[in-house]
């Protein structure tokens, strides 16, 4: 359950932003989480309130945008959807598809006041 550590890292980034930009309260935190990555959105949501309690992010709403997997197929010369990290090209069956999206794990933006 490394999602606890990930939410702690989010809180540390929010602290960084507070030092730079100065705000007193965080209303919403928006994350981008790739569907082929190692973080489970439900687990992030599950631990979010407990981990942020007593921090600058206390009471903030968590919004997670999931980013679907995609990859570049060199045989088809185009970006194709990927259901799994190691999936073959859904168009031509080529196993050498280079993943280009779906691995994201970012703090995208926050609503603050």
């Amino acid at each position, binding site marked *: *359950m*490394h999602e606890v*550590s*990930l939410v*702690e*890292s*989010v*809180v*540390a*980034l929010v*602290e960084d*932003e507070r*030092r730079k*930009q*100065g*705000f*007193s*309260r965080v*209303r919403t935190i928006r*994350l981008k989480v790739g569907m082929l*990555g*190692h*973080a489970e959105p439900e687990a992030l949501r599950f631990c979010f309130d407990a981990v942020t309690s*007593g*921090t*600058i992010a206390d009471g903030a709403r968590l919004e997670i945008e999931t980013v679907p997997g995609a990859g570049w197929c060199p045989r088809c010369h185009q970006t194709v959807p990927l259901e*799994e*990290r*190691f999936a073959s090209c859904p168009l031509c069956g080529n*196993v*050498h598809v280079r993943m280009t999206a779906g691995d994201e*794990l*970012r*703090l*995208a*933006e*926050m*609503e*603050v*006041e």
Partner: protein
Amino acid sequence: MCTICGCGTSVIAEHANSEQHGGTHGGTAHDHDHAHNHPHPHKHDDHHHEHADGPIDFGKGRAGMYVAGMSQERTISVERDILSKNDAFAATNRTRLQNAGVFALNLVSSPGSGKTSLLVRTITDLKEKWPIAVIEGDQQTSRDADRIRATGAPAVQINTGKGCHLDAHMVGHALDHLSLRSGSLLFVENVGNLVCPAAFDLGEAHKVVVLSVTEGEDKPLKYPDMFAAADLMLLNKADLLPHLDFDVSACLAAAQRVNPRMRSLTVSARTGEGLAAFYSWIEERASATAAPAP
């Protein structure tokens, strides 16, 4: 608890019976800019008062209106990787290890794959050729570090408490407790867990994933993140193959599918089978970083 590494609950022990200094890490001496330091003495840089030139406009905020006592919400674009703090610690560790001439491997696997036995065997076989040190990660106890020290190699035990993985900040602390000679090999034995340690770069040269033949041959497909992050897979406990239905070629095919760049070696820490190839793999890469001891 420190929000970066949780080191209020983790313990780094240099010697089996030494005083563990977790208290220091959890105490006030170890400040990571916690939420309540207030370095800016009430600056107004979160909103702009245009006193000098323009009009004083209270309708400029997001809400388009002003209510006394209520601040106006705004959206800040951040776009930073959540693991950027860990990655910064990892980059520091990596530079430190390279400058010290130390070649570091991060060993990851499920619990019980034989990582510690593999290390004990490797140290015993290579210690005449290379100075070797070990950082051990476990939730509790210093049993693994004790086993390593019995070989004569120095070992630092990190206890992660409830933590399911090592992170780069913990490893940085552990490095403070090791006096690593130039030309050393450093093995980091991660917490036995085939999921979480994949995400945390520690500053190692390579991740090595250990899979034992008593596990399923489809593990690389079921836990792809770890196998995608590793540069070498050691298929351990090969001495048990005659007693099992484990399909080695199916396992290697699954590993190749998840990570075509990963090398795979079939070994046995018990009999030593296949380990010469592992030692060659280490030497080919370590000689670029760490010169063998004279």
